[in-house]
């Protein structure tokens, strides 16, 4: 039948085109034609996603924090302008506050952005609504108020694609908090629970780990792709493999990669290595106050020892 024959011809032609595109992209990832096409698609779909993102965030909006609005207004004014007058929900405000606290602690200069689209299938990528027109370039660090989000992989004029640290393809150099020992962290990918545990592999065989240790990013060359000092996660379990040269551990990330809202792109790295200053304050054990009451005859001694233990 003619219809079927034409259909087959079209099918074969389109399959060949698809294979050719795959081959072209595979052989030369930075092809100018493909980049231009991607830019156009980024403009078109990015604009649509930008419009839809506000609606989409309704679904993922968390709890309210009405009491803190007043105290944060001054900090928010600048970011509000950057977000082009977009109405910020209260959960966004909270995320912005945490982002600013983190960036302030580690002396990063960040550009706030919001996640407008999430990659399909097994791609651990998101799109944020800032691009090269805002000064974002590839291989910059993306974080939010909790810690490391990922790395900018490609940029279009108004959008940027971020590969999450969650991705199995992403390897992050990490430093263990107290000791500064180096290792690398890879992501688990998409898992049933939403965000799984990362895997830490130490570089040195003499490294000693224990559950509860926290990780930050170690310094990269020229601060790309990762600026130093961004919190990654906390070690939950050591993995003992017979015959392994170095230690490995499971790491629970600080960031919930399935509920990303406001993120920040580090556009100016810190002048000095912030070390572990950006880590959340909770793990640092506070001073243990011990009050000893001198015993008097006839009364029982009272001993109070409030202490703060690091949360696991």
């Amino acid at each position, binding site marked *: 039948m003619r219809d079927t024959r034409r259909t087959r011809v079209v*099918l074969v032609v389109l399959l060949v085109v698809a294979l050719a595109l795959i081959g072209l992209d595979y052989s030369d990832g930075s092809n100018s034609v493909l980049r231009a096409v991607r830019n156009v698609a980024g403009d078109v779909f990015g604009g649509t996603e930008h419009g839809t993102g506000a609606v989409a965030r309704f679904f993922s909006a968390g709890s309210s924090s009405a009491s803190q609005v007043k105290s944060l207004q001054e900090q928010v004014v600048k970011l509000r302008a950057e977000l082009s007058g977009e109405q910020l929900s209260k959960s966004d405000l909270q995320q912005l506050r945490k982002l600013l606290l983190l960036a302030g602690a580690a002396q990063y200069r960040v550009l706030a952005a919001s996640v407008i689209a999430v990659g399909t299938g097994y791609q651990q990528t998101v799109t944020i609504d800032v691009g090269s027109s805002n000064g974002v370039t590839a291989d910059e660090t993306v974080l939010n108020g909790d810690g490391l989000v990922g790395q900018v992989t490609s940029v279009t004029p108004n959008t940027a694609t971020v590969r999450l640290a969650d991705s199995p393809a992403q390897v992050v150099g990490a430093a263990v908090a107290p000791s500064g020992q180096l290792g690398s962290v890879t992501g688990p990918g998409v898992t049933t629970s939403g965000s799984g545990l990362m895997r830490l592999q130490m570089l040195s065989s003499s490294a000693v780990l224990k559950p509860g240790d926290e990780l930050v990013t170690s310094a990269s060359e020229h601060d790309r792709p990762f600026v130093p000092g961004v919190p990654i996660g906390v070690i939950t379990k050591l993995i003992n493999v017979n015959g392994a040269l170095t230690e490995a551990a499971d790491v629970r990330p600080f960031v919930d990669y399935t509920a990303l809202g406001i993120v920040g792109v580090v556009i100016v790295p810190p002048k000095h290595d912030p070390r572990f200053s950006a880590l959340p304050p909770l793990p640092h054990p506070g001073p243990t106050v011990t009050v000893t009451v001198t015993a008097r005859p006839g009364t029982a001694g009272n001993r109070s020892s409030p202490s703060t233990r690091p949360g696991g």
Partner: protein
Amino acid sequence: MRKAWLAPVLIVVSIVLQLTVLNGLRLPGGGVPDVVLVVVAALAVADGPLAGVIVGFAAGLCLDLAPPGSLLVGQYALVFCLAGWAAGRLGRIAGRSPLWSAVFMAIVVAVAEALSTALGLVLEPAQVTTAEIRDVLPATIGYDLVLCPFVLYLVVVVGSLLAEGLAAGAAAGGVPGVPTRSERAQRRRQRQQVRHHPRLVHAAARTGDGWLTSGHDRYHGRQPSGRTRARLRPASGVAGSASGLRHPGSAGRVSRTPPSLRLAGGRRGDGAIGNSVGSGAIGRGGGPRFGPGRHPGMLAGASRQFRPRGGRPGGSATRQHSGSTALASTGPGRGRTPIRFGGRRGDGALGRAFGSASLTRPSRPAPATPRLRTGTSRSALTTRSVPRVVPKVKFKTAAPAPARRSAAAPRFRRSSSLRSLGSAYGLVSGGVLEHSTFRTARRRAGAPRLRLASGRRASGPPGGGMLGGSGRSPLRGPRPRIGKQPRFGYGRRSPLSFLTGRRVGGSWLARKRAGSRSGGSLIGKWTGGAG
């Protein structure tokens, strides 16, 4: 037909929905439904494989290029293209059964999801791990399958609403995806009316009279129903009478491909051929109304003028046009309407009544007049209006090709000379050529396509042998099929004979050329061959 913009709109909406909302959801099981794939499969099931292929490719490419996409460009395009094709094919098989459509669609979606995963595993091994696949793939497929019937329902509902108008879609009831029997019949009718197929109906003609007739003149007094279409009525063994008249009700809907008639009057007598296209309604503006058997050679046209000359040799052609009425702009005047027919001696009356009335636009000027290019001696042409587009009518006065032969059917070139040769040079009785005579004849006639008959012995005097295996005149019956003629003759060296070292020709070639059906071996057997 579905609106053309339904598919792009659905695809864009589903892509944006997928990227902004669905992928960010945290659903139990770890996966999220792939709504783009489901929409592609639904559109393919509804619209067929070709649309499925194109829509799938476009959707996949968009999904590859849309900003968070980090895979290789073309990965989703490849998978979705295949999925669209498969869903379209299986949708054809499923027909209009919604259950089977949904089942096939679910199968295609599941397979495509697995294929997409496998392709990702091959092409991007760093991004896809087997642990991920084990976790996510079953949930993704499960969500897809849950989504399948709803999306299919949505696509079909929206498509039918767009196709039939909102009111009709609402009136069609709650389940447009499951059309009732009458709906199905109605759609089938609508589909069929788009094309304009002539139907062949035998004419109840008397011997010797052919007339032009319309499709509905058999039923006097009956208004043509909406289902009547133009019919071609070849004569049943009598002089050709044919008509390609469209019925009045569908005056505005003529297919754009012009009808092409190829008619041959098999007899020397009259033949009247008419083609009256786009005649108007009977009740309005004096449409054609005529009956069978009134007169030989009567033309079916605007019925004002008959040319009762069909009984005579010689063509009579008429062209009827009823003044103020016209073809609609979508009428057949758009394309040319070639009619070729040949009687034996140029006989046959050609009538062409064109556009006698139009229901829809009665005030349009008359568009067309035929131009006759003819070698016939007595053809008449009456024209009353200036044409806009001119149909062409060609007469062929040569011997008519048999109806079942194609246009590329070979012709006898020198048949007459062969016959005369045969009579002059002594075809022996029984239709067998003598050796020397055959050679002579062959050389003179230069027609190596001689078919020797194993006819009746003593059926004629010497020299009266028959050509043709059946004993019929070659002009009468259907002609034997003759292949392409080689350029070289018997006994000559062929261009290829240097390869074989043999003289190609002689009895071998004669037998080859004569073929087995016509008893080519007789040459060698009876006469010793020609070489």
